[in-house]
């Protein structure tokens, strides 16, 4: 595929790897967090870790939209399908996330709930137009990448006078999550999680631009290299971070210049601002309550807000007590440090959210990287 294969070229990767190895200082380690699940997936799928010298370690961040979705929110979507007889439309990833009472949206579907996979919120609109007698709810999840399409769908519903369409908004914000990690006691005070820099989001940054990261770089002295989702993008960004660390710099650099500008997509930002406003608090799975980290629908669009329309309350649900997803999402622990990993928690029967999506740190490691820690597999595969 043109414009894709160029970014998956093994020969070029070898040259970038050689540069990284040559520039890494022997007297220190480099710990970089890739925020996005898309990067986690690329690192695992293309075996990027094999190319990195031992001194460079990647920490998988919380940027997997499915992983940070709290159980209580999935419960809400399930209640809409099973108790309110709504047609719940959502992205495929969301279906297998374990919820309360042993349910998931997939299991709710098997119990007769109308749950539909859509590729775009416009598909949900079409379903609403086709079923005027049914309530149709788009279960909207994701970071800034998926927010503009939700906003556009909502505006289109109003234009088309679709009175049976609403949105359950669980959209979250990247900058607040990064701040939360940088403010967490492990990173800030104890220094138990040395973080030397961030591989910045790809698609999110297309929408919000590179400017929002300038604050972290300056305030927390952490270099950021925004990278595309292809494997060479990630490796080039790692090289840029190594160079910044070596030079003692903490700047926002942009490897993904073919798509990301400093100010981002302002038309998209305007549509989002028209429809959404900040929530003062929102629970993230693994991170807990993060202030001003999510979006809700503005009161003037309340008719399209499923929470208002169905008068829904939010009931938080704690994770399994041995589940380490929270610590893994904050970079404090690795998947293999969790007792449940590869034993009772596998991609076939996920306990925690990091095992659900192939972008999740645990699922990515289980599916693609397990041969590096054979002992765990021997137990699990028996």
């Amino acid at each position, binding site marked *: *595929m043109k414009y*894709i294969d160029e970014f*998956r*070229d*093994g020969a070029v*990767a*070898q040259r970038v790897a050689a540069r990284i190895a040559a520039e890494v200082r022997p007297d220190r380690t480099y710990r970089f967090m890739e925020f*996005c*699940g*898309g990067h986690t*997936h690329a690192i*695992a*799928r*293309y*075996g*990027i*870790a*094999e*190319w990195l010298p031992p001194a460079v370690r990647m920490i998988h961040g919380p*940027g*997997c*939209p*499915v992983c940070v979705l709290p159980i209580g929110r999935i419960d809400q979507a399930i209640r809409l399908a099973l108790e309110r007889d709504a047609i719940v439309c959502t*992205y*495929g*990833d969301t*279906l*297998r996330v374990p919820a309360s009472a042993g349910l998931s949206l*997939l299991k709710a579907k098997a119990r007769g709930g109308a749950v*539909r*996979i*859509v*590729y775009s919120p416009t*598909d949900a609109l*079409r379903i609403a137009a086709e079923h005027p007698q049914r309530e149709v709810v788009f279960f909207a*999840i*994701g*970071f800034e*990448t*998926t927010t503009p399409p939700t906003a556009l769908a909502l505006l289109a519903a109003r234009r088309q006078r679709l009175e049976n369409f609403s949105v359950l908004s669980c959209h979250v914000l990247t900058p607040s999550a990064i701040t939360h990690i940088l403010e967490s006691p492990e990173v800030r005070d104890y220094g138990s999680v040395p973080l030397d820099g961030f591989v910045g989001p790809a*698609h999110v940054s297309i929408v919000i631009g590179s400017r929002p990261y300038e604050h972290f770089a300056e305030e927390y002295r952490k270099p950021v290299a925004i990278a595309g989702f292809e*494997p060479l993008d990630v490796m080039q960004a790692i090289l840029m971070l190594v160079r910044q660390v070596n030079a003692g710099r903490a700047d926002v650099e942009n490897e993904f210049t073919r798509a990301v500008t400093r100010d981002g997509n302002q038309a998209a930002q305007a549509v989002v601002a028209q429809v959404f406003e900040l929530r003062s608090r929102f629970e993230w799975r693994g991170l807990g309550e993060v202030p001003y980290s999510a979006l809700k629908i503005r009161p003037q669009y309340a008719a399209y807000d499923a929470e208002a329309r169905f008068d829904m309350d939010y009931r938080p649900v704690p994770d399994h007590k041995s589940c380490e997803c929270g610590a893994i999402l904050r970079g404090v622990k690795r998947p293999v440090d969790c007792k449940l990993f590869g034993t009772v928690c*596998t*991609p*076939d029967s996920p306990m925690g959210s990091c095992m659900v*999506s*192939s*972008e999740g740190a645990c*699922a990515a490691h*289980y*599916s*693609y*990287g*397990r*041969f590096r820690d*054979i002992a765990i*597999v*021997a137990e699990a*595969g028996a």
Partner: protein
Amino acid sequence: MKDGYVRPIDLRDGRVDMNHGAGGRAAAQLVEELFVRAFDNPYLRQGNDGALLPVAAELLDGGRLVMACDGHVVAPIFFPGGDLGALSVHGTLNDVAMLGARPLYLAASFILEEGYPLADLARVVESMGAAARAARVPIVAGDTKVVERGKGDGVFIATTGVGVVPRGREIGGARARPGDAVLLSGTIGEHGVAVLSKRESLEFETTIESDSAALHDLVAALLAAAPEGAVHVLRDPTRGGLATTLNEIARQSGVGIRLSEAAIPVKPQVDAACELLGLDPLYVANEGKLVALVDPAAADAVLAAMRADSLGRDSCRIGVVIEDEHRFVQMDTRFGGRRVIDWLSGEQLPRIC
């Protein structure tokens, strides 16, 4: 009154109704005018509840019977490059052929949904008859049931196939050995992408057609090119794709498999569709491909024979069987890294980010 006149069933505008499954005159007429006509062969013409069949020569010489069955419920029923009817013939013939067998007979059971257009049913049944004739394997017995509207999905077809393997031929999923060459008969992912392209809510334009095909001639050709015993495993990577099939073999045989991504052929259109939908072609279904795990000494000869067959033109060597108590399927990526090719968890779902 015209003696002996029976009004033919309306294959243009008619629809399946409950009478067609009730065992009365309407049911008999449907069988007679549609199924028997499309599948016509002497065994079916016997007109009994079962078919009386001659014994194959191999069986008198220590050969063994192979029997396989497969239910076909694909949606949509018509897709680019095929339909449910042809697929229900190919799928079962391939299951029989993967044991190194020569397929002899097929039987088919139809579950029809009330209201299904008879014109569409006729297309499916005729396509099935054509596929069976092309494969030179007669459909010798059948059954039809009708379920109420809403209790089926148009047409379900379950087929059973019977074949024979000659004495001494041992091919099976548990017989892979370290050192075996892993051969693949062509490009992967076409069937899955062709079907997905016609799914409601996902429709996209593609020139990709399903690879649905009967593989027993290819199997016969590749077996003829190798000394008896050199072909250890044959399997068609259908649901779950190549990745799932290789994991099954690794588990059954207690071995590992090491693949080279660069050697696995994928058509650019399939690659592009998968990229767009967030799918991995390794996990996408095929209906006309096989993998052969072969003694390395015979691999070149087998590969040449596969390439000489029209269904194996793009055959290639994609990896090797290794010793591995953990039974991993691993792949050297084109990018230069290495990763595990794991079992698929549930259905392959698109990623959103």
